[in-house]
């Protein structure tokens, strides 16, 4: 069991090195002829107006929020699914109630017009 995690740990290490090294090497190989015009921020040929970090729509936040809630609830369901064989009927039904609450949540968000892109 721990060996499996050892593999994952080492794989994380390797996987970070693999794309990193070619990027570094290419940085050494590639020409470097920078100029102020070249490093300007791209904006369809115009000079950038104002700061980049302008405010964005709250809509993006709301989708992330809905996702967060679903995500946490789904994590609860994974152990339930693994233990499915050993669960009594009550356990299965309470799991289903849990999913139904999730469904109600989706409907509530739907009715509130959250899922509408405006």
């Amino acid at each position: 069991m721990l060996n499996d995690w050892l593999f994952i740990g080492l794989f994380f290490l390797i996987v970070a090195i693999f794309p990193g090294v070619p990027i570094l090497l290419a940085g050494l190989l590639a020409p470097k002829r920078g100029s102020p015009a070249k490093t300007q921020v791209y904006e369809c040929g115009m000079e950038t107006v104002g700061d980049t970090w302008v405010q964005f729509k709250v809509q993006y936040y709301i989708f992330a929020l809905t996702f967060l809630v679903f995500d946490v609830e789904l994590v609860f369901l994974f152990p339930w699914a693994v233990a499915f064989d050993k669960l009594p009927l009550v356990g299965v039904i309470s799991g289903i109630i849990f999913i139904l609450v999730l469904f109600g949540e989706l409907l509530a968000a739907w009715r509130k017009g959250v899922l509408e892109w405006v």
Partner: protein
Amino acid sequence: MIPLSWYLLFAAALFCIGLFGVLSRKNAVAILMGIELMLNAVNVNLIAFWRYLTPENIAGQVFAIMVFAVAAAEVAVGLALIISIYRRRDTVVADEIDMLKW
């Protein structure tokens, strides 16, 4: 092998760093980040106690997963409040949000 004390000290340190963040930061979002660190310290303790003291009793894990749920709810509501306050009052500095003081 790693004794239990290492985990407990690690969690205590993490908790104190989080506490420092909560007490010292101006920005409300940063304060929430500090709270996240504190919650994680709690979770490390819960899992460590489960593993070292009562591996046959699953309670530690159940509590830890509940902490996940609470942390998620707290972040969702907290950040929504901060965003809403920002839209009304144009500030996220916790000291300036003092309408309830009187």
